[in-house]
């Protein structure tokens, strides 16, 4: 049998998981994963996750959408298909604002969603944690802390002792 994906402990409450995640960080585990059925305030900080580039991607795409939308209108109305309507200016930029606004929002919103999924590595239908039978409850009412084998400080026996000291409902091995 190959090395497992990691070891997993199951908890009954959000507070227990939060406390366990903090203890794991104090103990030096840097890759701890915490699974919960709803977002828990402070959990990301507890496992040491702070930086996300989702807002940056949204900003960049929003600017690109706005500039692109305006350029499309400017280029088509001024360069490619100029229409002289009573001598009015071709670059009638105030009239281009509604579409510019819409393309900005469209690009930014889709970038936010796509960046979120991409950074999360989703879609990924198959993942080792799903092999644990109890993990079905991670989307219902149970909270799981997983210390993966790729954590630099991972060593099966001490990790198991560490998790058991947290007084979880049970400790399970996640097969690879």
């Amino acid at each position, binding site marked *: 049998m190959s090395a497992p994906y990691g070891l997993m402990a199951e908890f009954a409450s*959000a507070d227990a998981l939060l406390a366990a995640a903090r203890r794991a960080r104090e103990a030096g585990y840097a890759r701890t*994963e*915490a*699974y*919960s*059925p*709803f*977002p*828990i305030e402070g*959990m*990301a900080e*507890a*496992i040491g*996750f702070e930086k*996300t580039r*989702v*807002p940056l991607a*949204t900003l960049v795409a*929003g600017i690109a959408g706005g500039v692109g939308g305006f350029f499309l*209108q400017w280029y*088509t*109305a001024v360069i*490619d*298909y100029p*229409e002289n309507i009573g001598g009015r200016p071709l670059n*009638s930029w105030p*009239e*281009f604002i*509604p*579409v510019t*606004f*819409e*393309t900005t*929002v*469209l690009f*930014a*919103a*889709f970038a*936010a*969603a796509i*960046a*979120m*999924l991409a*950074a*999360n590595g*989703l*879609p*990924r*239908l*198959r*993942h080792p*944690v*799903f092999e644990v039978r109890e*993990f*079905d*409850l*991670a*989307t*219902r*009412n149970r909270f799981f802390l997983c210390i993966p084998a790729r954590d630099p400080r991972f060593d099966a026996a001490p990790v198991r002792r560490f998790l058991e000291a947290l007084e979880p409902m049970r400790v399970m091995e996640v097969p690879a």
Partner: protein
Amino acid sequence: MSSQLLNPRWGYASISDKIADIVLHRPVHWIWALGFIVSGAFSAMFFGLMGYLFLKGVGVWGVNIPVAWGFAIGNFVWWIGIGHAGTFISAFLLLLRQKWRNSINRFAEAMTLFAAGIAGIWPILHLGRPWFAYWLLPYPDIMKLWPQWRSPLVWDIFAISTYLLVSLLFWYMGLIPDLATLRDRASSRTKQVVYGLFALGWRGEARHWKRFEIAYLLVAGLAAPLVISVHSVVSLDFAIGNTPGYHSTIFPPYFVAGALFSGFAMVLVLAIPMRKFFGLEDFITMHHLDNAAKIMLATELILAYGYLAEIFTGFYSGDKYEIAITVNRFVGPYAPVYWTLFALNIFIPQLLWFRRIRRSLPALFILGILINIGMWMERFMIVVSSLNRDFLPSSWGLFIPTWVDWSMLAGSIGFFVFLFLLFIRALPAISIFEMREIAAEERQ
């Protein structure tokens, strides 16, 4: 405050099971089946009449010169307005940290999608040559033509399609964690696979939640100005033209207020039977309905201001055409519509000042229906009354709807109900993970 939102006897597991089992395990009830068949028949009529319209042309409607904008445009404005409440609830109330939105946002967003989708059909039907609808899009065609960017009709297609796409995205994002719940709870293989595919392998990891929350908040922040922009752009379809009665700067705020007003009325019309039928009274409480009724009252007052400002500026302009159209609304051929909409949208909703009315289910349900009728009449009045008398008496004319006009309106309502009934059975009508968050707060 928060204890009004959720009875403390509900925990994470019972909330999840209650909402998920409506979809997964509840057998089909005969009332649902009857509604499904009836609304399905209306939907079939809607699409059948579309075929008739395409075969015969727009002459099957009552539209003609001078009233070339009839039911199709009125229905379009009405439906898109109904959609607004869903985005308002999900985006604005999220940004304002109004926790009571958590149990009503999901089905209100579904309502938005269906209403906006149906709204989008009408302008295309109205085109006369609907198979050329794609000419509105900018693409390098062999005729070397580009859209006229200075036209509100082109703004409209961008506004509506962006609104539809962003609403769909927002709704789907919120659904991902709940689809994972359905995947993990489903007992049949087919359901596991179908919900599992759409859940994209969501596992609820802390980093994922963090990015999810940030992205959700960002999309909400983007959807909030979007919802204001959509009906503003729709109103510019009218306000940019110089037709008396259309050419008014009050139109954008007045349209947006009317949209929210009719949308919240529709939320009540959908929520009251739904919570009763599925036993969701503990999640959609009287407190929620009361809050929705208060927002209705507030938007109704803005709308009343819009009506009065329209009358005032009509006379104040000193323009004889503007004055004539205002008087024509009071006493002209469509005066009964005008006064009825005043009664339904302005006078009767004043009942919402009373707490007893805001806390009475039958009263709210009836008010919701009356307000939707009143708002439909308002859209009709705006579209038709200005066109039937413009500058030249020689080009005056009446619009009289035909049986096709009425049947297509009824068919579109049937199609809306049909989609909503399907939604309730296929997806969780209340956001499960956001209800768990409320339960978590209750415990502290």
